[in-house]
């Protein structure tokens, strides 16, 4: 096996390990009583924080219906174990799709390069 493909394999394995550990990213905040990120509140939270929902926000907030909102499987339970599992599953899907999309884009860009080189 060439040195380059060994490197690439090692990097993919590292990413796999990170994915398996990723439920920590939802379990630890729950354990430490931390909420979401600053400035990423939902409509209800905004109303609780400020006493009203800004008009424009009300209009725009629901403009896009993501299929797996909040890295959760639709209809999953609210327990910490279930959330962790949903986070893991959606994380696997997300990483796989991200890698595939970036790979295809890179191949596409690189191929255009070869065609231009022939001209």
């Amino acid at each position: 096996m060439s040195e380059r493909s060994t490197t690439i394999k090692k990097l993919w394995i590292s990413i796999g390990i990170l994915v398996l550990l990723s439920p920590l990213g939802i379990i630890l905040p729950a354990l430490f009583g931390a909420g979401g990120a600053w400035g990423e509140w939902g409509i209800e939270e905004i109303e609780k924080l400020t006493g009203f929902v800004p008009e424009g926000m009300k209009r725009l907030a629901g403009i896009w219906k993501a299929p797996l909102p909040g890295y959760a499987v639709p209809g999953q339970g609210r327990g910490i174990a279930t959330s962790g599992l949903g986070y893991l599953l959606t994380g696997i899907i997300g990483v796989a799709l991200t890698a595939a999309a970036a790979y295809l884009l890179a191949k596409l860009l690189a191929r255009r390069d070869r065609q231009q080189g022939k001209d």
Partner: protein
Amino acid sequence: MHIPDGYLGPATYGSMFGLVLPFWAAASRKVNRTLQAKQAPYLAIGAAFSFVIMLFNIPVIGGTTGHATGATLIAILIGPWAATISLSVALVIQALLFGDGGITAIGANCFNMAVAGCFTGYGVYRLLSARSDPSGRRRWIAAAAAAYISLNISAVLTATELGIQPLLEHTVDGQPLYAPYPLEVALPAMALEHLLLFGFVEAAVTALVVRYFQRNEPGMLA
């Protein structure tokens, strides 16, 4: 740091698309000219790494959460243009599939975290590590400092875009139409948590991986 839909008014999110588009076009051209087909896996690994590192929400006890982005690390390893594409792909998938960041805010989020994150991180790293030994201590220290500065710049940009909303977009009686907190609230809130915690996490992750490459794959840092 992922701005949701409804937080930025059309003038801001439109401008942010306008800002990010030329960078995407230039990045495509640059990568097109320099990338060989066999290097495509590195772009994919960069995007996957960025996606997964952003899953690690770090809690501020009893407060908010934040995360690293990997922008500086990826820019050091594959260059700022390819890294911009990698991070943008991760951010677009996060918005479309998981509602993490709004679709109207894709321009803003990609500018803040991908473009600004990758280029400031890469620039500071190059500046601090200039003429240093690739296997030396200055390299990973430069990487850590660059990562810290880069994440904080992304955070300050995000806070600024959110904080100017009440000024730009309000009803006739002054009620905010989008993100409701003014700059004097948004800026310290976001800057402090990134200066005190998340920036150090980004720095540690970046320095650790750069150290790994120094020891095991020095060719990647040449």
